[in-house]
């Protein structure tokens, strides 16, 4: 029999429902896996009792003959960007160390309402700023993967949802929440060989999620496969009156409508995503993906998204601008860290608290954001970046005239070793080159594993869809998944 921790969300849900095993057994198995995986540093806080309580509730409901909730008996990992009532929430920062919210984020509450339990709070790049999970105040998350070259270089699990990607790939959780601002669900999913979808901006409430860049932040699921992502996204999404940017629309029944046949569908291949210096393996995988989608019945069309090359610079103006403002509230006055040396005045308290509390990457972005919003530079940077954003959105709108979804690689490389890029912020930012444009346009986009590179490391393919067409994205991703038959998994070394 397969170990319970090898099961994904659908398998657990069905198994609990059908009485193949109890939810408590599942929770206990994952709790044990979490406890035994300290070397990965994926979890900041473990909450085995939360997972057990949800499991017991599921088992009790089943015993009482009730219809089980959509995620009854499924324990998950919660990215530590989501505020969880009574459980410390730090966004992997020092400035929020010791902060325990008295409220529950809408997304996490939705998941509990769907019957899910929480295994713990997952590590991430500090305030979700990073592409390698090396900016956490509480240490790097290590990818469970190793290169097959015999070297044991610890690899980056991607960022910012690196704790989430690592936990799911290492079978510490069947699914985990992620947040995606410029690719923070898709890039880590690609790095560890799992699936992750960022839905249309506004599908998931941002209420109770610690803000990075408000106009971009969007929660989404990270799981083993497309079906699991569909199940979990259904549980997470929904209109929330507490978020003014939340979409007042019903949540579609994505799982029920999964369909891997793409007959009659047109898949666009954007030529601008063929970037200089992209490894041949990525290019080859992309071609393979095209062949798979053709095989699924899709027609392939070439499209042009001419403003793609401006997306990354625009993103690295807009996101830090919003971040500099969103992070102003961490001032040492109401919660979290407060550094007030003897005799210091208010100004000095702010300065000391923020100097101590924020890591280098966060400070870098606050400074960039403050600069681009300052009176003399606002038009040159921020206004210009917003114009670019509009042009990028228009590129996509034009593309939808000729195709239904787009297929691109998820990231320009496989996972790199920790430390390899951390000294070069610009090289690090390039990781997001394929994920950022769809974020700027607020579009649904998903990464699914397509294969491995020469070093045996996973590579992801990205499907980008029209606004609100998560179904189209999931279906195309499912078609890829079925043909890729990706079964590689990291050897357990931890």
């Amino acid at each position, binding site marked *: 029999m397969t170990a319970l921790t090898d099961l994904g969300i659908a398998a657990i849900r069905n198994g609990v429902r059908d009485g193949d095993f109890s939810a408590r057994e599942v929770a206990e198995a994952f709790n044990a896996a979490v406890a035994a995986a300290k070397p990965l540093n994926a979890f900041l806080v473990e909450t085995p009792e939360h997972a057990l309580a949800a499991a017991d509730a599921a088992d009790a409901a089943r015993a009482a003959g009730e219809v089980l909730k959509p995620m009854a008996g499924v324990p998950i990992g919660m990215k530590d960007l989501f505020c969880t009532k009574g459980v410390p929430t730090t*966004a992997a920062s020092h400035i929020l160390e010791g902060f325990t919210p008295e409220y529950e984020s809408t997304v996490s509450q939705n998941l509990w309402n769907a019957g899910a339990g929480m295994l713990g709070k997952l590590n991430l790049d500090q305030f979700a700023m990073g592409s390698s999970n090396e900016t956490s105040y509480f240490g790097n998350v290590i990818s469970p993967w190793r290169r097959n070259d015999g070297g044991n270089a610890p690899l980056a699990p991607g960022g910012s949802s690196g704790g989430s990607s690592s936990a799911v790939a290492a079978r510490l959780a069947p699914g985990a929440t992620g947040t995606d601002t410029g690719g923070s669900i898709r890039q880590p999913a690609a790095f560890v060989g799992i699936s992750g979808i960022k839905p249309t901006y506004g599908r998931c409430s941002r209420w109770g999620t610690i803000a990075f860049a408000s106009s971009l932040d969007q929660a989404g699921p990270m799981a083993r496969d497309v079906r699991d992502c569909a199940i979990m996204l259904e549980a997470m999404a929904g209109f929330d009156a507490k978020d003014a940017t939340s979409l007042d629309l019903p949540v579609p029944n994505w799982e029920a409508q999964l369909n891997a046949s793409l007959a009659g569908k047109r898949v666009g291949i954007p030529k601008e995503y063929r970037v200089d210096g992209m490894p041949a393996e990525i290019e080859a995988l992309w071609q393979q993906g095209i062949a798979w989608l053709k095989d699924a019945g899709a027609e392939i069309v070439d499209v042009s998204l001419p403003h793609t090359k401006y997306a990354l610079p625009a993103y690295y103006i807009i996101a830090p601008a919003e971040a500099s403002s969103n992070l102003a*509230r961490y001032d040492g006055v109401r919660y979290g860290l407060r550094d007030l040396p003897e005799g210091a005045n208010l100004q000095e308290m*702010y300065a000391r608290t923020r100097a101590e509390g924020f890591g280098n990457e966060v400070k870098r972005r606050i400074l960039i954001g403050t600069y681009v919003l*300052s*009176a003399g530079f*606002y038009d040159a940077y921020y206004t210009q970046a917003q114009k670019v954003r509009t042009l990028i959105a228009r590129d996509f709108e034009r593309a939808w005239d000729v195709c239904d979804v787009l297929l691109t690689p998820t990231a320009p490389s496989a996972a790199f070793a920790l430390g390899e890029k951390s000294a070069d912020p610009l090289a690090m930012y390039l990781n997001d080159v394929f994920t950022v444009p769809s974020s700027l346009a607020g579009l649904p986009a998903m990464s699914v594993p397509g294969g491995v590179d020469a070093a045996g490391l996973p590579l992801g393919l990205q499907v980008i869809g029209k606004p609100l067409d998560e179904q189209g994205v999931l279906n195309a991703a499912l078609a890829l998944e079925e043909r890729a038959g990706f079964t590689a998994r990291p050897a357990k070394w931890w």
Partner: protein
Amino acid sequence: MADASTPFRIKGATGDWEVVIGLEVHAQVSSNAKLFSGAATTFGAEPNTQVSLVDAAMPGMLPVPNRECIRQAVRTGMAIDAQINKWSRFDRKNYFYADLPQGYQISQLYHPLVGEGAVEIEVGDDTKTIGVERIHVEQDAGKLMHDQHPTRSYVDLNRSGVALMEIVSRPDMRSPAEAGAYLTKLRSILRYVGSCDGNMDQGSMRADVNVSVRKPGDEFGTRTETKNVNSIRFVMQAIEHEAARQVDVLEAGGTIVQETRLFNPDSGTTRSMRSKEDAHDYRYFPDPDLLPLELDDAFLDECRTSLPELPDVKRARYEGLGITPYNAQVLTAEVESARWFDTLLDAGAKPVTAANWVTSELFGALNRLGKSIGDSPVTPGQAAELLALVADGTLSGSLAKQVFEAMLETGDAPGKIVEERGLKQTSDTGAIEAVIADVLAKNPGQLEQYRSGKVALFGFFVGQTMKAMGGKANPAVVNDLLKKALG
């Protein structure tokens, strides 16, 4: 006050100076909840008892616009005939200060809810139109208290996030009196609309006063801004002081520095708070947590139809009823008085008589008692009844005064007082004739003198008759019957 036809001038050593005034009025929107959270807004609550997670800027909290605050700002704009922008947008104004928990204030710099409008004022016999450039909606900040602890500042976030309308005038005012008249009129309009209670002493309305001086006809001079002045009188004082100070500086060969100043009510003077050089570098950008505000026609129609009759229109209507312009002005200046008077008219009182009675008798009495019309012991219904008793001859003028005094004391209806105290006027000719006969019989000397030509004694007989009847006789009937009896 000076004759309005003579422009207000400051006499300087180098000649006359003109003062140019613009006002930014911050008016707290009357609503039960804050602009972007559900927290309450009651004045005078214990510190930090009206603070939601959003107001305290807890991690992950998001603002959601309060429809009622938007509605009130739109109605206010409509009341000053302003352009209502169906598309407006909230911006963040970023700057660090401990009274600002989010580190920014949500305001509307680039696309305000309300555009150009105007307020008509009267100074002396002149009317003048003061332009309003815009009204935007924004959050109030919290309050910092520095005097509670030797080394700490205390923060009270009760006001943080409360909705304010910033009503920005054009620099159209030219004297402290005009500024006073503008504020008075604006406050009156806000109270009519019900969008702000206008209570300056509670901070729900305050003004930033922009003042510059120039030689008449010159270009605008450099202005200073005196922040947060909280009474109309102080605004006028601040202008007077600041204008005189600027003239002194300029005449001494100095230049005016654009700066923010504070008004000291105790000394009536202003002092520098911060100059432009160390002013905050506000960083503005559209608030990404909020979508642009888009208003539909149904919402605007509802706002428009919910507007009450406004002071100028009401005043014209009163004048059309024959009420004197002065009385019409007095009755419409404050919404409470106007409402009271309208109820009185609705109860059937004759407009002119009612206006005279309200402005003299009622307002006089309230003044004496130190009460406002809002807590008048006499209701409009009771006043209508009193006026009706005078009109139908039941009460004479003097009896009416007696009854009114009793009404003020007891709060009873006039009919009840008349009944209980037997104050009804009598026109019973038989009874009056009997009393007259008695008076004439008792005063043979005066009768003799009257008949021999001293007709001025007629008043004496009227007085005696009225006195004998306890003041309740109908004076007209007494006159008629006396004339008859005296031949």
